[in-house]
């Protein structure tokens, strides 16, 4: 057995609801395990420094930058990636609103944005505009100017927008 092989770790975790196991170096980034070993390329790499949010996933329901998680620390955990949002061939509500309201352009930030939005709405089903901005502040988008993304999140809230909430969006847009 070579030195490199001796350093492999057996990782067992649940990814998008399915039990998976990989044998990889323990310091391999969760991002790279998802993309290279599990071929889940929906999760994107942007900065690789935890500043852009493109690699956002939920780890045991908690929003993380998968570029900063060594896979050993995900052992035994549940991971949700963008591939796990849709169920039974139907888009998740947050995906539908991103689609309908133009919350996605080039698409690189979109998976991370959706996971950040999913995390926000799980913790706070009715976030205000400032709370949405804070919830998405770790996710950079170079295309949309953010307003359409924020619109998409607001429309993904379970309850319909109040008239004053819609007015607030319209005022910011103007």
């Amino acid at each position, binding site marked *: 057995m070579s030195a490199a092989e001796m350093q492999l770790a057996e990782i067992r975790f649940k990814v998008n609801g399915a039990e998976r196991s990989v044998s990889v170096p323990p310091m391999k980034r969760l991002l790279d395990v998802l993309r290279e070993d599990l071929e889940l390329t929906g999760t994107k790499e942007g900065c690789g420094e*935890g500043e852009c949010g493109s690699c956002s996933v939920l780890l045991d329901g908690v929003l993380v930058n998968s570029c900063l998680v060594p896979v050993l620390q995900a052992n035994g955990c549940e991971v949700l990636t963008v591939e796990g949002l849709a169920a039974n061939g139907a888009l998740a509500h947050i995906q539908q609103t991103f689609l309908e309201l133009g919350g996605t352009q080039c698409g690189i930030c979109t998976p991370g944005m959706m996971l950040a939005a999913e995390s926000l709405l799980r913790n706070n089903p009715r976030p205000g505009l400032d709370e949405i901005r804070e919830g998405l502040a770790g996710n950079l988008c170079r295309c949309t100017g953010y307003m359409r993304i924020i619109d998409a999140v607001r429309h993904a809230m379970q309850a319909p927008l109040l008239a004053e909430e819609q007015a607030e969006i319209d005022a910011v847009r103007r």
Partner: protein
Amino acid sequence: MRSNVSQYELVAPGSLGAVLALLAAEPGAWTPMAGGTELMVALGAGRLEQRKLVSLWGLDELRLITANNDWLTIGAGSTFTDIRQNAVVANEFPLLARAASWTGAIANQNRGTLGGNIVNASPAADSPPVLLVYEAEIELVSAQGSRRMPYSEFHLGYKRTVMQPQELVKAVHLLRGHRLPVEYLRKVGTRNALAISKVALACVGAMQSGKVSAVRIAAASLRETPARLSATEAALFGHALTSGRIQAARKALLQEVKPIDDIRSTASYRAHVAANLLEDFLEQMAASEG
């Protein structure tokens, strides 16, 4: 240049005792890693020099926040999200909750820990100035036992601390019931989310009969460590806040800070802004009595 991850070792012994035993068995050989928000950045950039790492993530003994009548104890493995969500922190140590809310964005706050922020010992870190003005105590632990000291004695120099290789930060302790009426925290950075500060100032104080009866001031990015500004405090203590006194305090601050030029800002900008932040705090102090 990306690191070759197969050259790195990472182990997760699973209990605090097992981690401490490993650190004691080979002092200096293993680098502790909590949420990875610092060390994994270095790995991604190909500049992580430490090859043997031991995971602190998920150690229940480190991730708890407890309060008794006198002390609030924040385990070193508490994340900034844990800190933001704690009711005692929010009600009694609000500057710490605010600093936590500025420490990166949500995903970083979900992984970054108070202990990691302290041990990393960046002069620009968000929580240390707050811990200094709240006169926090820090508890270190090793296989040999634990020791506790004022946090103000923890940082020795740039990225140097009193910690021994076999030690971990176990917890930070904050004395309850001594809150001062004026609390101030201001961070100046490039943008709100994620930006490392150019300069930050944390202050607490009280006025009595028109004079400064208590004042504590601490800064980030103004010296080689997070630091109390004791000469500035001395220039204020016991005095009325006349315009002459405020000028004297600004002068004291400018004499005791030693900011540098770096990628984020310049020394002169940092000094000037710090003096302005001080004045902003002193205006709140002056307005705090009646």
